[in-house]
């Protein structure tokens, strides 16, 4: 397992995919945090409340919605990329234990996703706090809350990436699985979350977003205000459960398929 993990981390470090996606996530997060902070309290359409309020500062610091989805996409690319580039043959020659390969990929995805989430959270926090301080506002959120949002984005992104790795094993076609991730986040969670608010906290993206403090969207559709967030351990449990479920279904079906 250690060898496979080492190989998976090396795969991530030796191509531009992970760093490129992380760079995109940070850039989009920075753009959204800057726009939200700059327009905060202006009462323009889509503007967040003033950074002098706890709600406004939270929305600015939690501009990580897109980064969470980017982490899930990264996870899908880690597994589906093996079939897109036909490298699965070499991978399974080196390690015929396909369950072990999937587990190593899920762990590598979780670590890479968490780093991506951490970078995005750090960017949004720096920008949001920078605007608030520059305008001379008092910090209306305690440091522990700010840290919790950052930790939520980090852990949420990591677990969404692990779930993405399972999804990429289940749907091996890379373009198809990336479309499926966006369709899930933009359509399924939006529709189900909007109509059944009691179920919404148990949906993976919503659970991750609420761990990160995302309510205004942060590049994604806003979370309906009626949705009551789970406690952070509950949100992490939902995400971990989704990752394990997807991996288990993949391990029982597509992962066993012949490599032709």
């Amino acid at each position, binding site marked *: 397992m250690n060898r496979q993990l080492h*190989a998976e981390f090396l795969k991530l470090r030796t191509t531009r995919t992970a760093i490129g996606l992380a760079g995109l996530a940070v850039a989009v997060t920075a753009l959204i945090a800057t726009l939200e902070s700059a327009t905060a309290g202006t009462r323009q359409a889509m503007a967040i409340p003033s950074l002098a309020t706890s709600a406004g500062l939270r929305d600015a610091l939690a501009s990580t919605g897109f980064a969470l989805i980017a982490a899930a996409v990264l996870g899908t690319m880690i597994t589906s990329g093996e079939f897109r*580039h036909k*490298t699965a043959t*070499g991978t399974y020659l080196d390690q015929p*234990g396909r369950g072990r390969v999937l587990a190593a990929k899920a762990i590598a995805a979780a670590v890479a996703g968490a780093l991506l989430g951490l970078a995005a959270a750090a960017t949004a926090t720096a920008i949001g706090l920078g605007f608030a301080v520059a305008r001379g506002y008092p910090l209306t959120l305690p440091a522990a809350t700010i840290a919790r949002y950052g930790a939520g984005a980090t852990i949420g992104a990591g677990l969404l990436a692990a779930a993405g790795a399972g999804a990429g094993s289940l749907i091996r076609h890379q373009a198809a699985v990336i479309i499926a991730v966006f369709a899930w986040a933009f359509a399924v969670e939006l529709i189900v979350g909007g109509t059944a608010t009691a179920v919404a906290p148990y949906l993976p993206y919503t659970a991750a977003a609420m761990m990160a403090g995302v309510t205004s969207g942060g590049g994604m559709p806003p979370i309906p205000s009626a949705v009551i967030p789970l406690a952070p351990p509950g949100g992490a449990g939902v995400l971990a459960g989704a990752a394990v479920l997807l991996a288990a279904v993949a391990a029982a079906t597509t992962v066993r398929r012949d490599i*032709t």
Partner: protein
Amino acid sequence: MAAIEARQLSKRFGAVTAVDGLSFQVAAGTVTGFLGANGAGKTTTLRMLLGLVRPDSGQAVIWGQRYAGLGERRRKVGAVLEASGLHPGRTVRDHLRVRCAAAGIARPRIDAVLGATGLGGLAGRRAGSLSLGERQRLGLAAALLGDPEVLILDEPGNGLDPAGVAWLRGLLRGLAGEGRTVLVSSHLLAEVAQTSSQVIVIDRGRLIFSGPVSQLTAATGQAVVVRTPRAAELSAALAASGAAVRELAGDRLEITGAGTEQAATLAAARGLPVFEISEQAASLEDAFLTLTATQGRPG
């Protein structure tokens, strides 16, 4: 113990039977050609040997064990299955680093295999910029990382230019000289004839020959080639005597079923001038085509 053994292997993909009760053995220390027409089941068989395709029935073993059960398997078995199995954004050296990490092979082997495959100057190039021949070499380099006792190669000559084919020939001979076991599928029958001592021929998933190359070519028989300006007359005389005659370009006849003495005697008896008469051993290509045609499939 045979280094590689297939025991009653069968595999179907939907309605298509790819491999049908195939059994063969590859003796340790031999280079064995694995031949068959397109769709004969060669690649499926090799993938079953390596645990990538699950047989419907039968067993495929290396050193008596399934591939997945081999300890330190990459030090025992190296394989080249497809030249396209590379991430285009990863450099040649990084590709080999990943394979080393996954197989637990020490990194110094990377420079050794880069040198052995002539890729030393391309170590920093991204795989996406490599030619097909260079990709084949990289596949061979990865297969050699573990310094394996057994090599399983699927069409390793695909995409190689003439110099590359000559290099591959030298590499396979070198590996054979070191006592390694090599099972190589190829469409380059002349190359197989030059590098392999044994040959396995399959057709529609079934074994149709397994044995020494010399036995296969001998079974196909020898032909006699005669050059005469009165080819039509000699052809008729030979045909009347029961030989099979095929007219070749340049007033030449290819005769099977009659030796040089019989052909020369017939020509002399009819006063037909003969400028050239010689025996031609059947090539592996002739033997392969004859064998597969006999089995009902056009070459």
